């Protein structure tokens, strides 16, 4: 029986409505709201139902603002019914790492030091998200002050016995488990890309200074980056585009115009990719090396120009630089808290902050000088390439909830301040995802995201985590 076209389109629409709404990406959700196929309230309720179903096992949220989100979604729905759309994220719920200020919402940075603290103003990133129509759903768990490697309560939704990584633990886990379509995390060493890779999602950070840090609790203010964590490269581009750009309230903020990252995705072409096998493969375990080789092989087969690239020797200093810079700067920020409530920190973070407070100035300044040299070396390594590709992490997510894993494959790029992105590239043992990291030149976010989107087309996307039961410690 041939279905009449009118009836078919009604059936198609009905079928699309019955797609699990919580599984929509940011881009899909925004598009369907704008087409009035779904309302912001429907989407929010679907996400809240998903949270009710899986949050007791994943524990990604530090504070879920059900009432505030319902109020915002109601306003967005009413505006949409009148054809008013505030921006590209109209009615789309977004989560924030719990170091980002949102007025009236508790911000405790997973520390007893800030217990009960409620900021009175919004971070610039929150202002920009809301101006674009986003609904702030709540705050996501962080490792303490985004500066500790001690695991918070959050579990990896692909396998609950494993860490989701950190410090943006909740952001990665919530997006992977489809409790929210997109979230923001922060990276001072490897805190966006590592958890994103462990949880099988896309994590992106732009060039240092691209996203304002006004209203964000610092870990190390010359190293901190904010960035989107999503289930597609297109979503990462959209969220980055929405919040990036100069902010006079942040003196670190870059003044360079933000490129059209979303538009750049339409100009996908086979990229020139450098692979640093000698450095990274020697430090990764077998399943990571094999997954990376498979992914790179598929990219080459699809037309990418893949070549070996040597790494500069300065990257050998990255761990030492991160330790010196992070602990010096964190000790400075925490000076008052350390003097008045030191016992409220986790013992390991307290010890690092205390030792950080006695690092000789000469060592800190020497670290800054070496970092400049490292930046030059990284820029030189990227010459003639669209991106360098590496495994995102040396292993899949470790089987522990006590620690957050190793940022050793991110530190050098974060120090260099260049844009980086991770996308899922396979599945390892224990049902755990693996990531492919792409690194581009400073202020080259648009071509890097275009390259990442091309790679995503070739490699594919893993879908959402189904969140099974824990098998115990």
């Amino acid at each position, binding site marked *: 029986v041939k279905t009449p076209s009118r009836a078919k389109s009604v059936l198609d629409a009905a079928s699309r409505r019955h797609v699990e709404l919580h599984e929509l990406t940011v881009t899909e959700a925004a598009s369907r709201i704008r087409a009035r196929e779904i309302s912001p309230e429907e989407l929010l309720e679907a996400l809240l139902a998903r949270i009710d179903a899986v949050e007791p096992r994943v524990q990604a949220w530090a504070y879920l603002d059900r009432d505030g989100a319902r109020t915002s979604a109601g306003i967005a729905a009413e505006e949409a019914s009148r054809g008013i759309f505030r921006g590209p994220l109209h009615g789309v719920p977004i989560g924030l790492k719990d170091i980002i200020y949102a007025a009236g919402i508790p911000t405790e940075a997973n520390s007893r030091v800030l217990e009960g603290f409620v900021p009175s103003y919004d971070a610039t990133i929150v202002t920009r998200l809301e101006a674009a129509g986003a609904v702030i759903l709540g705050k996501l768990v962080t490792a303490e002050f985004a500066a500790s490697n001690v695991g918070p309560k959050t579990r990896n939704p692909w396998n609950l016995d494993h860490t989701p990584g950190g410090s943006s633990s909740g952001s990665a886990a919530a997006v992977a488990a489809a409790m929210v379509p997109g979230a923001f995390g922060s990276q001072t060493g490897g805190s966006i890309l590592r958890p994103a890779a462990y949880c099988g999602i896309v994590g992106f950070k732009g060039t240092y200074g691209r996203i304002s840090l006004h209203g964000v609790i610092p870990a190390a203010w010359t190293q901190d980056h904010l960035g989107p964590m999503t289930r597609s490269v297109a979503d990462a581009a959209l969220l980055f585009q929405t919040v990036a750009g100069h902010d006079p309230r942040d003196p670190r903020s870059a003044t360079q115009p933000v490129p059209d990252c979303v538009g750049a995705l339409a100009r996908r072409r086979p990229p020139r990719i450098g692979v640093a096998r000698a450095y990274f493969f020697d430090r990764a375990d077998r399943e990571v090396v094999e997954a990376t080789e498979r992914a790179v092989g598929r990219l080459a087969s699809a037309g990418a120009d893949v070549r070996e690239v040597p790494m500069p020797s300065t990257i050998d200093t990255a761990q030492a630089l991160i330790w010196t810079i992070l602990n010096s700067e964190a000790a400075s920020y925490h000076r008052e808290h350390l003097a008045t409530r030191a016992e409220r920190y986790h013992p390991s973070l307290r010890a690092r902050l205390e030792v950080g407070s006695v690092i*000789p100035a000469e060592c800190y300044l020497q670290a800054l000088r070496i970092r400049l040299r490292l930046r*030059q070396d990284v820029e030189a390594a990227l010459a003639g390439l669209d991106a360098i590709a590496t495994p995102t992490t040396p292993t899949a997510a470790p089987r522990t909830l006590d620690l957050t894993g190793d940022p050793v494959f991110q530190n050098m790029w974060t120090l260099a301040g260049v844009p980086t992105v991770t996308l899922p590239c396979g599945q390892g043992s224990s049902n755990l995802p693996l990531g492919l990291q792409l690194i581009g030149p400073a202020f080259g976010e648009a071509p890097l995201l275009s390259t990442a989107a091309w790679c995503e087309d070739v490699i594919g996307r893993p879908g959402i985590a189904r969140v099974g039961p824990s098998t115990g410690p």
Partner: protein
Amino acid sequence: MTVTPTAEEITCLAELLYEAARVRFGEERAEVLRPTIQQGAEYLAVVSSFRVVPEDEVCLRAPLPDPARAVSVEAEPGTRR
């Protein structure tokens, strides 16, 4: 360029950190900090032993904001519940 510090350099930095911690936090606390001090000394020794000669310090080709100019002006505690 040297990035492999000697044991003597590490010991020297560990003693420096320990003495500073003892003066600042007291002997009992400095003892608690010994493992972190030892780890830190190993990292600081790498930093200290890396030679950066002035001619290396040419400007970056990409105009990154200079983080050395940055000051910590982020979030200050606002209202409390």
